[in-house]
């Protein structure tokens, strides 16, 4: 484990989902970061990043919403740590724009409208998976290896695409979560659907299309005999877990496939109590995973 005094302090940005439908992601992220000695503080006065939707309604609103949180992190002088892939992607894109002189001048009046001045200090925007896989060393903290647990790691879209915005892992065959799950002692399956889209942003107005996309992911995980799918995006989880019963009903299939966040898996392997990680909060019960380890 890296020494505490050298590790950076992060502004943790939970986004709209982590305080509600993705509570277990919030809990497990905080518990794991604490256990690894990483300092964090919640980003003060954060707001919604606008997701994949706001920019398609109004360009200026989309830019301002995404940049607002990055500017707050700059003012609070800490790197922004996002867990939700959507928040991460939008914030990383905004941070890149804020660092480029021409786009910075385009953003300045927009943020002025939101009551914010642009600080000179730039900050990095980081994803929780990136920090866990590339900055921290979790291996000494593993106390209870997840031997025999078959996991399919699902990355989705926004964590690793487009590469010029994300860039820390492959857009075609990302391995960060595979690596983390392997360190946790789990058997990592070769999951071809790992970067397929679950249809998150069009779930409500184009339900049928989104269900079809999600079904393809669940189908492959089931075929491979996965005990659970491991991911790091609340929107993907909404489709894969919360809508799993709807998909089972619509297509006459049965999955009962637990969908866990990578931080829950790491927490379990570190020997942290399942309740502290929020494993009791899943709508598709994670009991089958707990009884296997």
């Amino acid at each position: 484990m890296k020494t505490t005094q050298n590790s950076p302090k992060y502004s943790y940005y939970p986004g709209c989902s982590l305080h509600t439908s993705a509570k277990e992601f919030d809990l497990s992220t905080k518990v794991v970061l604490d256990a690894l000695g990483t300092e964090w503080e919640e980003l003060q006065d954060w707001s919604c990043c606008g997701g994949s939707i706001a920019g398609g309604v109004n360009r200026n609103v989309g830019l301002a919403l995404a940049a607002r949180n990055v500017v707050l992190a700059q003012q609070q002088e800490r790197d922004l740590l996002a867990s939700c892939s959507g928040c991460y992607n939008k914030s990383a894109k905004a941070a890149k724009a804020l660092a480029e002189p021409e786009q910075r001048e385009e953003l300045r009046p927009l943020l002025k409208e939101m009551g914010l001045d642009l600080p000179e200090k730039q900050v990095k925007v980081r994803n929780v998976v990136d920090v866990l896989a590339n900055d921290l060393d979790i291996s000494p903290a593993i106390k209870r290896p997840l031997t025999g647990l078959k996991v399919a790691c699902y990355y989705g879209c926004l964590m690793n695409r487009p590469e010029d915005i994300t860039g820390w892992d492959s857009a075609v065959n990302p391995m960060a979560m595979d690596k983390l799950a392997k360190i946790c002692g789990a058997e990592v399956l070769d999951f071809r659907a790992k970067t397929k889209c679950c249809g998150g942003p069009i779930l409500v107005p184009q339900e049928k299309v989104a269900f079809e996309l999600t079904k393809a992911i669940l189908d492959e995980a089931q075929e491979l005999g996965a005990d659970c799918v491991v991911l790091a995006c609340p929107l993907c989880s909404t489709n894969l877990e919360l809508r799993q019963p709807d998909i089972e009903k619509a297509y006459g299939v049965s999955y009962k496939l637990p969908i866990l966040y990578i931080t829950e898996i790491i927490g379990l392997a570190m020997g942290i109590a399942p309740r502290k990680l929020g494993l009791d909060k899943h709508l598709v019960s994670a009991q089958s995973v707990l009884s296997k380890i």
Partner: protein
Amino acid sequence: MTTLQKTTKKKKFKCFFGIKADRQVDGDRMNTAFQQRVRKAGGKAAAIDACMQCGTCSGGCPNADKMDLPPRSLVLMIQRGEWEAVIKSDTLWLCSSCHTCTSRCPRGVRPSEVIEAVKTIAIQEGIENNSTRFNQIFVEQIQKRGILFEPELMYAYGGIEAILQQAPMGIQLALKGKLSPLPHKVKDPKTFQTGIANLKASSTGQSQTQPEKNSGHF
């Protein structure tokens, strides 16, 4: 003559080997007026004129089979200035913003961002469907408090019917402590609301000039 017609007519200079700069791949006349509007709506990122029609975007698109104009065709139509077909296309609302096209495009066109830009134009031009309605309500909901409150979003979009339909899941979420009864908000919702309102107002001005429809080969 409007400024838009002017921009369509100029630019006839020759490139190397006699290829005309305004004739990209298939010899069609390029309509720069609509391209310019898309670029204005999408920032520098929307480098539409660089498209060489290779089709990598449509090849990787998870929803291409359901679209009336898969991404490659959509970009071609924008190049040709067929703006009516473009803004009426269901492609805009079937795109799930997975960015596979943008990640793979060998010419740096960023089709997913082109689509995002065209969506804003379509809304300005009065296109209405479930997706435009949902997306606009989504932004209105954020505008209220800065942080999304999902039950209210579902109600605003689908009315009481949506709430009833989602009730079983909602109850389960509430029992697990995953549905807060009260919405969260930013420290100063007033500034936030006015800010978003002003930003919305500042960008509606773009919609006044409509590009000429290109009398193409359709």
